Structures are given as structure tokens and as C-alpha cells.
């Protein structure tokens, strides 16, 4: 055992791993927990505004964007000092946001007003408000940045917003309460999770004549009531091979083969697993477990849970710094 840890230590020395910071928004304790990705130790916790949920970072890793839902704004923090540098207007009750890969603008869903708000992150002004379906939630941007996707929870649609003129060009009906959307890196597939419908809709965004729903992926876990299989957060590996799905109160991550759309594995994690993020090298996947107040570290290649780390109360979102 000692030998093993010695070996492990030397192998660590041989290939120095750069630590990344993991930021977790804690919806109930109103804090952001900071974890270092080599030691997996909590190194700090700071106030994140009231009811922090959606969390993302600027491409250069310098700024942290937090949707402070009960403050009706986005709080922007310095990722080094954890000091709030400014706030962005968001409209009421911001929940999820997606940042343009260039770092500007920020696309936000406002559940209360049935709007997607486009915010200029430099001038800190609202550029546009786009009327969408009832209770907009999930936000995604296509790798070629041509489309922003918004999912509306009561309308049950994925809206395709053209980033050129900010007009909705296509709508795809999906199952009940779509929560999250994500593209594969090659832009060939769009996945939308339907929490209450219990499915992932697979959409071909590039089909002739416009985007088309190609299939739906369902879930089945022995001894888990089907109504608790509620897909929410999504992440797909950059080699376009594996889709990871957080299954909410089923306390599991489903691993889906992107090629065949088949579920190949269920990984047991903490309670009410909600959102996900990879470390930049995609060796690890982190899951927020809202009802067990921890995050789970998953080995992506082995598709295994490695450990869990206690964070604040009701962790909701997670983002890993790119550097």
C-alpha cells in the first residue's frame, strides 16, 4: 500500500498536473465553493449573491459569471481574488446562461418574462430581448456560433435563434419540461434533456430543410421508479463519443454512446444530481448533488465515480476554470 502511494507520488512528480479551480454554486447557502482539481480539496468559499444557480466563466478564465436568481442579476467575480467586479443586468430570475466563445455576448434565459436576454459583457448593457416560449431555461450555442438554442419548459420546445439577426428560425417540439441543451463539438447533433418527459431528444441541426428531431433516448434503471429518471444537466466529450446525463432524483449519471444513442452505463452519484462540467483535459467529470450537498468526481475514461467532496448547501451549478 505504501509502495503504491509512493509510486503514485512519483508518477505525479514525473508528469506535473496543472490544477484547475472548480467553482460550485450553492443555491441555498448563497455561496460559491472553490475546489482545487489536483488535491480535490476545498480551498475557499465566498458569497455568491442570493440564490446562485447558473455559473460560467470567460474563455480566458479570468471572470466568473453567476446567475444570482433572487437578485435578478448576474454577478461577475474575479476568478483569482473572488471579489465581485461588477454586475450585469439580466431581467428577473436568471437561471442559465451561455457565453459566446469569444467572451461576448452572454445569452441568458429569463424564466419570468418568457425572454432570452442578450447582454454585452463589455458595455454591460442589454443588447436585445428575444421573446421565446413559456419559462425559458436551457441555453446552448452551436460550435460555429450560428445558432443559440433556448429550451422553454412549459412550451416544450427547442427554439433556434439565429445569432445574426437574433430571430427565431426554427422550433422543435420535445418532451415535457426541457431543461438543458448541448451540441456535440462537431456540431452534428444537438441534445435536449426533458426532465419530466424523462428523455433526451436528439436533433439533427443541419438536416436539409432545417433542424429535425431524429430520435429520443429513454432511461431504465432496475429498482428505480421510472418517474424519478429525470434528465437535467448534460456534457459531451470533445471527441463526440460520450454523452453524460445527470438524472436528477435518480441519483445517477447515464453514459450514452453518441454514435448509437444507446445508454451504456449508469454511474451512482449523490442525491438529486443536477449539473455537470469536465476538467479541461476531460479526465474528470464533476456533478453537483443538490440534496446530499456534495459533488462527485467521475473518471471519464473508466466511467467510474472516484470520490465525493462536501460543498455548501444545495449545490446547483459547476464550472471548471480553463487554465
Amino acid at each position: 500500500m505504501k509502495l503504491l502511494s509512493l509510486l503514485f507520488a512519483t508518477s505525479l512528480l514525473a508528469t506535473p498536473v496543472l490544477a484547475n479551480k472548480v467553482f460550485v454554486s450553492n443555491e441555498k447557502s448563497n455561496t460559491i465553493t472553490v475546489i482545487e482539481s489536483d488535491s480535490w480539496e476545498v480551498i475557499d468559499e465566498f458569497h455568491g449573491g442570493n440564490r446562485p444557480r447558473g455559473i460560467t466563466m470567460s474563455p480566458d478564465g479570468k471572470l466568473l459569471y453567476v446567475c444570482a436568481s433572487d437578485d435578478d442579476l448576474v454577478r461577475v467575480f474575479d476568478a483569482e481574488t473572488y471579489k465581485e467586479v461588477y454586475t450585469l443586468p439580466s431581467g428577473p430570475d436568471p437561471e442559465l446562461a451561455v457565453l459566446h466563445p469569444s467572451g461576448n455576448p452572454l445569452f441568458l434565459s429569463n424564466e419570468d418574462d418568457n425572454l432570452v436576454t442578450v447582454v454585452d459583457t463589455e458595455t454591460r448593457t442589454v443588447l436585445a430581448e428575444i421573446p421565446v416560449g413559456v419559462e425559458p431555461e436551457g441555453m446552448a450555442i452551436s460550435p460555429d456560433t450560428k445558432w443559440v438554442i433556448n429550451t422553454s419548459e412549459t412550451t416544450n420546445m427547442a427554439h433556434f435563434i439565429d445569432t445574426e439577426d437574433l430571430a427565431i428560425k426554427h422550433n422543435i417540439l420535445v418532451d415535457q419540461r426541457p431543461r438543458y441543451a448541448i451540441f456535440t463539438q462537431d456540431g452534428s447533433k444537438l441534445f435536449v434533456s426533458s426532465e419530466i418527459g424523462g428523455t433526451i431528444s436528439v436533433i439533427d441541426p443541419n438536416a436539409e430543410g432545417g433542424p429535425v428531431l431524429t430520435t429520443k433516448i429513454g432511461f431504465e434503471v432496475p429498482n428505480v421508479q421510472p418517474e424519478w429518471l429525470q434528465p437535467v444537466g448534460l456534457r459531451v466529450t470533445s471527441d463526440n463519443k460520450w454523452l453524460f446525463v445527470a438524472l436528477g432524483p435518480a441519483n445517477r449519471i447515464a453514459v450514452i454512446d453518441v454514435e448509437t444513442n444507446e445508454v451504456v452505463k449508469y454511474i451512482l452519484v449523490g442525491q438529486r444530481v443536477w449539473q455537470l462540467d469536465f476538467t479541461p483535459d476531460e479526465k474528470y467529470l464533476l456533478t453537483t448533488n443538490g440534496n446530499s450537498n456534495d459533488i462527485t468526481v467521475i473518471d471519464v475514461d473508466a466511467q467510474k465515480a472516484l470520490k465525493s467532496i462536501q460543498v455548501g448547501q444545495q449545490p446547483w451549478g459547476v464550472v471548471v476554470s480553463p487554465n
Partner: protein
Amino acid sequence: MKAAFAALCGMLLLVLTAGSALALEVRTAILRIDYPELLPISRFDLKPDDLGFAGAVLANEDNQTTGSFLGMEFAVTERATTPEDADAALDAILAEGFDLLVVMARDGDVLRLADRAGDGVLVLNATARGSALRNDACRANLLHIAPSNAMVADAAVQFAMWKKWSRMALIHGSNPEDRALGESYKRAVAKFGGRLSETLEFEDTGGSRRTDTGHVLVQRQIPLFTQKMGRHDVVLAADASNVFGLYLPFHMSDPRPVMGSAGLRPVTFHPAHEAWGATQYQRRFERLSGRYVQEADYEVWLAIRVIGEAVIRTNAADAATLRDYILSDKFELAAFKGQKVNFRDWNGQLRQPLILYDSKITVSVSPQEGYLHQTSTLDTLGYDRPESTCTAFKENG
């Protein structure tokens, strides 16, 4: 199978992009019977003029937002009537060509109106809770959004059993609907293995519900009424007529929790419910109506959303197509209850979780953990398929 599915998706896309040239019109009528009633014990329970109708307007907006992306036009028409004029009001609605109808009325009137409307009309019972409507008296053209008394009683008693308050005393009112609700509680106690320690009847002697400083009398009356009760863990109050239930908490001789018509109440919805995205529902409702939501508003909202969802998925607006789809296993709807709601194909009852509400917050949601079922845990509430005496839905069986 995959090819067929892809073709279907293709068709759907065609529909999505076809635009308003083929606008599908969907018109639903809401008929509410206003009964002569005494004022409620609490002014929190006063019935606003737009009770139910506000839910219909909100649901129509929700439907129309989706409809505007699909080239569909949704509309609702609200009518309030008296018990005497109800038949004529229905006839007028039918003469205007409506075949989708939501009814807010008592059990007997719901049944009569459904029969009068006939098989070509799909009637959604928004608020009537009698278990008979779902059993012997069920009708093929009548679907039930409101939970039955049996479902409500099961929701409360499951929680009591989860708490290990297994010795339960029942106090029911003296009117027929109170006794019927009381029977549902007796059934629930037996169903979940509790023990009914005793049953008391509180007599409705008529008169006003509220008087100035009436609490002085209540403070003497209720301890007297309950002082001979034997040992019990919890009191189940069955007070459909809203006569005495609210007087029980704190006034009973023994300090015991009350569930049912007072204390911890099983409800379809309440204005403080925030879980599962309900906050947005509350804010939309309040912005629209200028008041807090009541159960009847939510139930009518749900009825109109059921129709909307069926229209959106089938691209049809006729009663027969919608009824088939609503009763099929394809139908599902998110209703701010944490899991999808759908219908029991043996009696047209909407399956739904029920919220246990203490008048301030959501205390719990039934079905409770551990009450399992081979089909849906929601079928642990109310009459399950093998117990049902409804035969009008046999073709779906």
C-alpha cells in the same frame, strides 16, 4: 420503426414550419355553476368572481405561446351560471358549436351536464371530487382533473402512516358530502394499515359561519366536543361543507395534529408552492389576476393545458381525437408537481401528486416514499384499476 419515427418527425417539422396559412382553431368553453353558499369561516377562503376563469386565461396564454410557433389559435370562453340556469347555459354553449367543455360544478350537476352534452363533447370535470363519479357513475365523455375524495384521503393517511401516527380518529360533518368524505378517510385508514380509534360526527346546525368574537364560543365548544375521545395520534377532519374543521386545531381536548379539512391539508396547489418551477407559475398567475391562486384556478388551468397539450401533439382539435390521445400512454404533462401527470385509462381520472399544505408552506407531497406500485406510484392514491367499478372506459382496458 426508426424509419417510421423519422418520417413522423419529418411530418411534425412540416407542421411546425407550415405557418398560419392552416391555422388550427381550438375553442374551449368553461361553465361554472355558482351555488348559493354561506360565507366561509375564513375570509382567506372567499371566492373571487374570476375563480377558475383566471386559471383558464393563464392556461390559454400558455397554450397560445406554443400555438403561435405552430400556427394554432387557442381561445377560451367563460360562463358563470346558477344551478337553475345551468342546462340552458350548456345548451347555449353547445349551440355555439363547442365540443370541448370544462365544468366547475358539484357532482350531480357535472354528471347531468356531461350526459346532456352527449358523447360528441369532451367534458373535463375541473373541481368535483365525489368518488362515485369515477366509479359506478363514470361516463365515457367525462374526464376528471380534480382528484377524487379517495385520492385526497389517501394522500393524507399515507403521510400519517409515514409519521407512524397509525391510531387515527375521524371527525366528519353531518351533511352528505361530509359523510362521503369521511367514508374516504375510513377507506384510506384501512387501506394503509392504520387503526381508526373512533368516529365522531359534528352536527351542522346551520347559521352563519362567523360572528364577532365567535372564537370565544369555539374555545369552549370544541374542547367539550372532543373531551371524551380515546387515545389517538392524529385527528382526520372530513368537513367538505367548511363548517367546523378550521376550529379543531389548538382547541381539541388532547393536543394532537389535525389533517384533512384543516391543519395539514392535501391540496392540488397553493399560492406558496415553489418547487419544480412553480414560482414562475405563481408569478404569471398573480400578474394576470392580481391575486393568489386557489385550487380551482389551478385545476381549470390544468384542464385547459391538458387540451392544449393534446392539440399540440396531435395537431387536431376535435373531441374524439383529443380524447383518444389524452387517454393513451403517449400523453404526459408537466404540472409543477415534480413528475408528469397523465390519465387512468380505466376511468378518465388524472393521476397527480397531492401537496400537503399547512396554509404557509408545502410540508410534504404524497404519494409518500415507500408506497410502491407496479404501474405508477401515483396509483397508490385513489381507486386502482382492480378496485374500479367504472365500465364506461372498457374499450381502453
